[in-house]
């Protein structure tokens, strides 16, 4: 495996608050690497440190073989960065934004024309070059921002919550673009608080309160959850949840539409404990079955195992 990013004990403190706490991981070249966790978990701070925008308090980060703390400007030549907030110039036209960032990345001459056309096509903005970037719908803004971040064809791309606020269809289209870039050899580091988006990542880390709590590929991370999850359809979902929460074998119970999901202790026998608890409360049910945990289930379970609370 060729290493694109190597992080050792990376730490960032703001006063007494530790935003990122001794995080270590390695990213393989050409992969999509996801940072998952709720708002405030430390994802954005980590990405900013890797992009050379924020100086680490301690630890070390090698990006494309360069120490970010020592050579931030050389790192910036090799990366593309897109922040979670729309940060192109709203009062500049589409083409003017592209021209500006091309200039800042030193993309000029015939290469500029080719890259501009590539961005316009990718973002679906051909023919709309003269529109102000600020007037575009959010999905277009995001694709234009992505295009401006990769004008210089960087080997590394950092995306900080690129899809926040976008509708699911546009989100899906955006992930297709990211996938295309990765297949062309770009290493993509992306943060998100939409846990279902983790499925698009080759490898991911879960963060909470500044600490790395799990790492692996999506199936591997799901397997980290040892507690089984069971689902069923009760007659009265709210009362079923109430009844299960009083049952000692049940760690967690919640409604999912008309269904109820229950997380049980690993050693518990669900097929006996659940019917018993519901029967005692006089609630009928059907379709009791064990289900695959979602990443959200895994996340909650891992945080609970650590005895901590989820920040959101």
């Amino acid at each position, binding site marked *: 495996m060729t290493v694109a990013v190597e992080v050792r004990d990376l730490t960032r403190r703001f006063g007494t608050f530790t935003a990122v706490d001794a995080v270590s991981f390695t990213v393989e070249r050409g992969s999509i690497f996801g940072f998952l966790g709720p708002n405030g978990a430390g994802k954005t701070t980590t990405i900013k440190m890797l*992009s*050379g*925008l*924020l*100086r680490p308090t301690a630890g070390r980060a090698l990006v494309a073989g360069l120490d970010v703390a020592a050579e*931030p*400007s050389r790192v*910036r*030549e090799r*990366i593309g*960065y897109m*922040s979670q*907030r*729309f*940060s*192109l*110039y*709203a*009062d*500049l036209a589409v083409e*003017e934004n592209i*021209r*500006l*960032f*091309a*200039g*800042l*990345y*030193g993309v*000029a001459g015939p290469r500029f024309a080719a890259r501009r056309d590539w961005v316009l096509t990718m973002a679906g903005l051909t023919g709309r070059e003269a529109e102000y970037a600020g007037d575009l719908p959010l999905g277009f803004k995001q694709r234009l*921002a992505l295009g*401006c*971040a990769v004008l210089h064809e960087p080997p590394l791309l950092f995306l900080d919550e690129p899809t926040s606020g976008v509708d699911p269809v546009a989100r899906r289209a955006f992930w297709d673009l990211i996938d295309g870039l990765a297949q062309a050899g770009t290493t993509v580091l992306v943060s998100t608080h939409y846990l279902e988006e983790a499925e698009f990542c080759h490898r991911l880390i879960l963060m909470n309160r500044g600490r790395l709590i799990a790492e692996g590929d999506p199936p591997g991370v799901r397997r980290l959850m040892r507690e089984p999850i069971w689902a069923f359809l009760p007659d009265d979902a709210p009362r079923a949840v109430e009844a299960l929460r009083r049952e000692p074998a049940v760690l967690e119970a919640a409604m999912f539409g008309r269904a109820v999901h229950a997380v049980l202790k690993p050693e518990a026998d669900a097929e006996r404990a659940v019917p018993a608890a519901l029967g005692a409360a006089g609630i009928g049910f059907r379709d009791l079955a064990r289900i695959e945990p979602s990443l959200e289930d895994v996340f909650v379970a891992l945080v609970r195992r650590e005895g901590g609370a989820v920040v959101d």
Partner: protein
Amino acid sequence: MLDPIRLAAMARKEWIQLRRDARSMALAFVLPLLLLLFFGYAITWDVRDIRLAVHDADGGADARDLIQAFESSGYFRVVSRLDRSADADRELEAGRALAVMAIPPDFGERLRAGEPAPVQLLLDGSDANTATIALGYADAIASRFGQQVVLRGVRIDPPVEVASRVWYNPELRSRNMIVPGLVAVIMSIIAAMLTALTIAREWERGTMEQLAATPVHRLEVVLGKLVPYLGIGFVDVAVAVAAGVFIFDVPLRGNLLLLAAMTLLFLIGALGLGMFISAAMRSQVLATQVAMIATYLPALLLSGFLFDIASMPVVLKAATAIVPARYYITVTRGIFLKGVGVEALWAQGLAMIVFAAAGLGLAAATFRKRIAP
């Protein structure tokens, strides 16, 4: 180290943004001219039409000649004639007259006898400036009148005569002093206000983060932003100089190229100061206010524009050394009125080079700290 492509990209982008921002355009092109016209017409130290009340106890031809001499000078206007000298108080207190002239009953008699003929002049000293000037005019008119009487042939031993000539501004028009100074005062304020917005705006709109993630060097950002504002500053100064010459009729005796070179130095410093404030404050509102305070009062009060620096208390005099407008005012007045060259203005030029380097250096230094703390 400085990349011309990145520099050009920054300058181009800044110019496009500036062109589209109505507030900046008004600040850049309308406000300077408005200020120039407003201050140019409003500020004047020339004292004319001083309201004069006269108590003429003599009533003879000589007394009438004296009053006539005051009126025809243009400096005094007789607003009332008093019957009793006791009324003088009333006129001054009510502010109807600024000066009262009392001519004694034996005025004409004494003159014809070749004796000294004293005339009393009472002045309202509550406005010390105007009173001093009025006193000077009255003295001049009276002594001239005295000479004429002497020449009419009573006694011919010529008194000591002072032949005074005023150089550079022979008519002593205060406008000739004010307009060149105004160019410096106005540009101090406008330049800092213009650039005060520029970096703070990037922070407020979040575009700074994207900019910071590119390889652009902080000096390229500062210089790239400077270029369009420098162009605007030059246009402003050119318009102000033209207005001074053609509207206010101020003579322009010196070398325009020298004025342009000095203006360049001054503008770099003033624009750099604004950018430094902008980078430090990170908020457009705050930066505008700080830029206003940091430039307006010093440029107006400590630059030698309104008050002579040489007669200031030591502490204030020392403070004027760090007011860039002070040096530029010496330059504009020198070039406009005296037509002096580099031999007289090199010290000012050096001071402005220091300010230009300091302004840009501070802006770039502050800017770096804030991107990656």
